[in-house]
C-alpha cells in the first residue's frame, strides 16, 4: 500500500504539457525519455441525417500520466533483482540503480508504460514521485509546475476525496494494479477497457507518448 498518490483534474487540464517539461528539466531527461506524459485522446464523428441536420459526437480530452505508484505494483512483483522497490519512508515506487540489471521486465509489465530501460545509464528509469521533495513536505515538480492546478499530490485519503481511482480510457481498468492516481474526469471521458474502435477513439499523439 502506498502512502501518497497523484490527483488529476480532467476538467482543468489543457494538455499544455508544462508538467512533462518541468519533469524532464528537473530530471535532466534527453530525447526519448519522459517520466510524465500527456495522452491526448480523441474520436467521434460528425454526421448528416436524412433531413440534412448535422450532428457530432466528437470529443477530445487529455490525461497526464506518470508512474501511479500502484498498490499492486506489477513492476515490483516481476522485478528479478528487487531493484524496483518502495521507498521505505514515502512508499513511492523507486528504482535502485545500483541493483537494477536493466532487463526491462518492469517496462514490459507496466500497463501505464511508466518504467523504461535507459541503456546508457544501465538501468530502468521512471518517476519516483520526487520522493526527496516529498520528504521535505514539498510536492513533486510536475504538480508545482501545472499552471491550471490540474495536478495534485498528497496522501491517499486526501486524493480519494478529490477524485475516483483512475479508470478512464485510454488507461487500463483499475483492477490490474490499483493505481494511486485519482481522477476528476472531464465531461467527455470514456470508461477504461473500451472495446477497440468504440466511437472511433484513439490516442492522437502516439509518437509523443508510446
Amino acid at each position: 500500500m502506498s502512502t501518497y498518490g497523484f490527483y488529476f483534474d480532467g476538467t482543468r487540464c489543457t494538455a499544455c504539457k508544462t508538467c512533462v517539461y518541468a519533469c524532464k528539466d528537473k530530471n535532466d531527461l534527453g530525447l526519448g525519455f519522459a517520466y510524465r506524459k500527456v495522452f491526448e485522446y480523441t474520436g467521434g464523428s460528425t454526421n448528416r441525417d436524412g433531413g440534412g441536420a448535422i450532428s457530432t459526437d466528437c470529443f477530445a480530452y487529455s490525461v497526464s500520466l506518470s508512474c501511479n505508484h500502484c498498490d499492486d505494483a506489477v513492476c515490483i512483483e516481476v522485478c528479478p533483482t528487487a531493484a524496483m522497490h518502495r521507498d521505505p519512508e514515502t512508499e513511492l515506487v523507486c528504482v535502485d540503480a545500483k541493483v537494477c540489471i536493466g532487463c526491462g521486465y518492469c517496462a514490459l509489465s507496466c500497463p501505464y508504460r511508466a518504467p523504461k530501460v535507459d541503456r546508457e545509464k544501465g538501468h530502468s528509469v521512471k518517476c519516483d514521485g520526487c520522493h526527496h521533495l516529498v520528504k521535505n513536505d514539498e510536492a513533486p515538480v510536475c504538480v508545482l509546475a501545472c499552471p491550471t492546478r490540474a495536478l495534485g499530490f498528497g496522501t491517499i485519503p486526501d486524493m480519494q476525496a478529490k477524485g475516483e481511482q483512475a479508470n478512464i480510457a485510454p488507461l487500463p481498468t483499475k483492477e490490474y494494479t490499483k493505481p494511486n492516481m485519482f481522477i476528476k474526469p472531464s465531461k467527455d471521458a470514456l470508461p477504461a477497457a473500451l472495446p477497440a474502435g468504440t466511437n472511433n477513439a484513439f490516442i492522437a499523439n502516439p509518437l509523443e507518448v508510446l
Partner: protein
Amino acid sequence: MEHAYAELPLAAFSTLASIGAGVFVALALAIPGGLFSSSPEKLKKIDRLTAIPVLLVGVGFIAAMFHLATPLNALNALNGVGRSPLTNEVVVGLAFMVVALAYWVAALTGRLGLGVRKALVSVLAVLAVFFAGFIGLAYAIPTIPTWNTPFAPASMLGYCLLGGSLFGLLILQAADVLKDVASGSFKVLFVALGLLGAAAAVIGTLGLFMVAGGIEAAGHQVAAALPWLVGSIAGLVLSLALAVISVVRVPRLGVVALGCLVVLCSVFVGRLVFYALYITVGV
C-alpha cells in the same frame, strides 16, 4: 514484428537454451538401449559431442546477457527467488547449467562410472523439462494477456522436446551409436517424444495466435505476425518428419543435420512471433 526485433537476444536465448536442454531428454531415452555400454571409442565420441547441448545452452545464456543493460550485475537476478517468475527461470536454468557442465567435464575426463552417468543424464532430462517450462512461465505477467496463458510454457516444452530430439539424434548418429540403441522400444519412445514436442509447440503457437486474435486493438500486430507463424509451424512439422524418418528408416547424418537446422530456424521464428505478440492491457 517491431517488438520481436527489440527482443532478439531473448529469442536467441529461449531457442538455444530450450533445444540444448532437451538434448538430455533424448539421450536419457537412449540409456535403456545401451547408450553408455558402447565401445570406449564410441563413448568418447558421445562425450565430445555432448559439447553441442552444453554450447547451445551456454551460448543461449550469453545471448540473454545482451538483453541486459548492465550484464555485470546479472547475478542480482537471483534476488527475487520465489517472487519473480524471471528469477525462477534463471535459478532453474543455472541449476541445469551447473549439473550439465559438471556432467560433461567429468565425462570427458573419464571419471564417471556407468551408474553415475545414467543418474546424471536422467536428472538433466528432468531439469531440462523444468527449465523449458520455467522459461515459458517467466512470461506469466497478469498485464500481458497474450503471454499470461498456459500456451507460453506449452510451446517452450514443445520446442525443448522436439528440438532436443533432433539434436539428440545428431549426437547418436554422429557417434555412430544410433543403430545400436535404436531398438523397437527406443523407436516408439523417440517418435512419441517428437510427436509430443511438435504437438505442444504447435498448440502453444496456435493458442498464442488465438488469444492475440481475440484482442481487437492488436489486429495489425496479429496480421504482421501471421506469415511468420505459418512458417514456424511448417518448419516444426517438417523437422518432426525428418526426425521420424531418421529413427524409423535408415538414418543419415545429412538428414538429421537438416532437421536440426530446420528446427532451430522454426523455433527461433516461433519465438520472434511470441515477442511480436506482446500485447498489454494498458496504453
